[in-house]
């Protein structure tokens, strides 16, 4: 049977197995599934006829069972007009029972067309497995971090990885790795001179799987004790937070191999700078002669950049910028160097999502890309920035932002993920309406914008009265003022405003503190 035929059967079997009480079913065709490789890659573009037929057959089955269900299919790319899957399933698409959504929030079906950031967030929330959550919560700091070299030259790495916010996910992935090992491990040896964040998850996983644990310097003693009690050789799991060239890891593995009680060593890195797979991969370790000196499994592939002191862009040497401290954050905001370094990385883009009442701000930093690469770091900084104003736990604080703006939506997703915050997005038409209104009348809002709308329900049912308004940047302050008036009318207390950037520190003032990671005064934009 071909892989595509297997996929057809797999889709039908899987969807038919869903509990009959379910009203909405999700079919995720957007990610690699090892059970269907390699042919699964072939359907990443337009949907294959086998899948189109499978979906149609499933709807037939459901109809036969009297089930009026909806099916949302998550795909890498929405099918183009005229695609077989749209023609084959046109009836279900027309009445809204079937919708295709891609990771950017674009959909095909009854509701189709442009990108909807909140849909993208929903898709990511659905898809978020442990690795995805780990990736999102891994704090990647950008800066200048001294890197040890073998000679007297200075070298810097541009990123510091901190997994302390995702210890739960790391521990779960470690436990899975231990459970799936062909030969059970006896002892976990870990080395983390610069990354204390790995210690908790490693100790947690080892404890839950009843494995001994040791640092490399104690490994010989621990191994002898366990081997003595066991009466046979030991299988060692060697865990390191990061593997780059692999030289240090090879040294550790060689030292372990020289222990007489050790019969097998399996190396696992939480992060790796190389490897063919983005996640849950395995890579070779190459020795000085260019030969393979073993392999190391890894959870997540990351990018790292090294800069030597002679590089003309080496800011600590050229500008006298202080190297960053791995153990200490540089405060709540971003320094000039940090901010513009991020902008240089992420690039600029013409402002989109421009409110109707003002002219566009021209080019602005590409906050989407900035958040994609350094989102958890920036959100963590924002969380630190608002800490003085928010006296409750973040879980008990409502975060409110305008809907439909991709960077704000991503900020909200990360606030939920990293800080466990409750986030509500207010639709842009509501804000547009409020900007022109002297008073906020809730009955009029409810009447105009539908009751019950999800955002209205969320606001009305909130148990907290403390709100933080957030947005990607401040230009004229009108959006934020409109949100504050709306929230005040609902009886909330706005305790502060949080933004990535403030473009109007000299001309826009609010009644509550504004916490921005960076600010400078741009030429004010005239209202339309």
């Amino acid at each position, binding site marked *: 049977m071909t892989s595509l035929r297997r996929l057809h059967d797999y889709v039908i079997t899987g969807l038919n197995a869903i509990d009959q009480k379910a009203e909405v079913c999700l079919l995720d065709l957007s990610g690699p599934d090892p059970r269907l490789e390699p042919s699964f890659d072939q359907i990443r573009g337009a949907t294959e006829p086998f899948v189109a037929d499978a979906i149609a057959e499933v709807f037939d089955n459901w109809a036969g069972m009297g089930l009026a269900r909806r099916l949302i299919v998550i795909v890498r790319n929405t099918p183009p007009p005229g695609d077989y899957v749209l023609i084959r399933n046109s009836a279900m698409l027309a009445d809204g029972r079937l919708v295709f959504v891609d990771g950017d929030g674009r959909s095909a079906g009854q509701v189709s067309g442009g990108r909807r950031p909140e849909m993208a967030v929903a898709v990511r929330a659905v898809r978020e497995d442990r690795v995805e959550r780990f990736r999102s919560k891994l704090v990647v700091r950008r800066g200048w971090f001294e890197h040890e070299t073998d000679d007297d030259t200075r070298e810097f790495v541009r990123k510091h990885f901190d997994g302390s916010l995702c210890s739960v996910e790391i521990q779960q992935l470690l436990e899975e790795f231990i459970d799936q090992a062909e030969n059970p491990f006896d002892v976990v040896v870990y080395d983390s001179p610069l990354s204390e964040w790995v210690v908790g998850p490693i100790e947690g996983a080892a404890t839950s799987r009843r494995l001994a644990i040791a640092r490399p310097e104690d490994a010989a003693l621990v191994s002898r004790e366990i081997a003595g009690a066991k009466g046979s050789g030991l299988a060692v799991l060697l865990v390191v937070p990061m593997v780059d060239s692999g030289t240090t890891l090879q040294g550790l593995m060689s030292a372990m191999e020289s222990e007489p009680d050790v019969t097998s060593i399996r190396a696992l890195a939480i992060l790796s700078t190389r490897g063919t797979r983005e996640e849950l991969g395995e890579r070779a370790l190459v020795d000085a002669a260019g030969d393979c000196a073993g392999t190391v499994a890894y959870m997540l592939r990351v990018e790292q950049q090294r800069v030597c002191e002679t590089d*003309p862009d080496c800011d600590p040497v050229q*500008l006298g910028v202080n190297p960053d401290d791995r153990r200490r954050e540089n405060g709540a905001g971003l320094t*000039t160097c940090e901010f513009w370094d991020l902008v240089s990385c992420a690039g*600029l883009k013409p402002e989109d999502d421009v409110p109707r009442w003002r002219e566009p701000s*021209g080019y602005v930093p590409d906050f989407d890309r900035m958040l994609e690469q350094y989102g958890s770091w920036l959100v963590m900084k924002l969380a630190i*920035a608002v800490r003085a104003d928010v006296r409750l736990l973040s879980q008990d604080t409502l975060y409110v932002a305008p809907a439909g703006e991709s960077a704000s939506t991503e900020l909200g997703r990360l606030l939920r993920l990293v800080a466990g915050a409750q986030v509500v997005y207010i639709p842009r038409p509501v804000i547009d309406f409020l900007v022109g209104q002297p008073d906020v009348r809730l009955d009029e809002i409810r009447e105009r914008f539908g009751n019950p709308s999800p955002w209205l329900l969320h606001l009305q049912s909130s148990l907290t009265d403390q709100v933080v308004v957030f947005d990607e940047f401040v230009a004229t302050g009108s959006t934020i003022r409109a949100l504050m008036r709306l929230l005040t009318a609902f009886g909330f207390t706005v305790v502060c405003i949080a933004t990535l950037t403030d473009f109007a520190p000299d001309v826009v003032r609010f009644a509550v503190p504004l916490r921005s990671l960076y600010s400078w005064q741009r030429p004010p934009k005239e209202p339309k």
Partner: protein
Amino acid sequence: MRREPSEDDAEVLLAMLSRTDDEALKSLLLEDLHWTTRNLEDDLRGQLLTRAAVLNLPLFAREGLDPSKLPSRAGIKRRPVDMLLITVKLPELRAVQLAFGIDFGEDPTLVDRQIRFWERDVEARYKAEPVRVAITMASFDANYRMAAFCASILTTYSPRYVVLVGMAAGVEGRVRLGDVVVADSVIDFGHGVLTPTGFMSRALSYSLDPNVARGLSFFDPHEHGWIGVVRELLAPFAEMEVVGSMSLPSGRVDLNPSFVRGTILSGDVLVEDGSLPAMREKYGDRVTALEMEGAGFAYTFDSNAIPWMVFRGIADFGGEGRTKEWQFVSAVAAAAALRVLVEKSFIFEYPESGF
């Protein structure tokens, strides 16, 4: 939290500006730079914004230069030096190079927008660390061009003192050829009003920093073997056939220069009509010499709160048929006096207050 930017932030922005070709990014960086520098001292802000403007001039395109062949300004912070010596013409540059031990063929330490700089460390009697000296040449005369040049090089250097070294026309009878005049003030005599009855002077006067003036009042280069130094420096040239910028006076010369303090007149005219004595009558008896750059030089560094000095060797008397044969010799005498000042005086003893 409100961002409170500093001068260091401005330096970061300037470095970022120098590294990018993206016009949109440059525009945002400039916005930030203007805002970042808004609360800095006017002079400092002016310097920083001038540097930003220089980075954005289409200089290379205008002059048809290949940027890849020029030393890059990327990441350059203003270079601190103890003393920045400015000359105008080639005989003056050669004289200063000679006095400070720089071979004429030596490559410059730094080239910035085709301005060449040579740096040297000089051992000084009253300073533990060597004195860092940078030497350059403006190439063009006239006060307005000197002012522009001085403002421009302040984007590259951060000097403690600046000195204009070279030659001038002297007031005959008050000084001899080869003498050295050190200015206690510089008068811009070209500033005035044209009225129906003629030119009415509104001369502008620039005086030395009082601490510098006090320090110079204690300085007599004769006490430190200055004449011997000048003769030693010039001896090799007397034995060879030298033409061009380093030519020497013809015939036997009894070089026994004096070191004179006085007022230097400065204007954008070359005086060859013998009017200097009359000008002395008009502007005061301390008028000793006349040249074409001192006023622009003094005004620029006064504006930047950097103490300045002017050392001029007397090369002619501003009369009809003047020759250039004393230019190199007089400039060497001036440069040698300055070298003696650096090595032997108290000039660098008190870092913050001058002398």
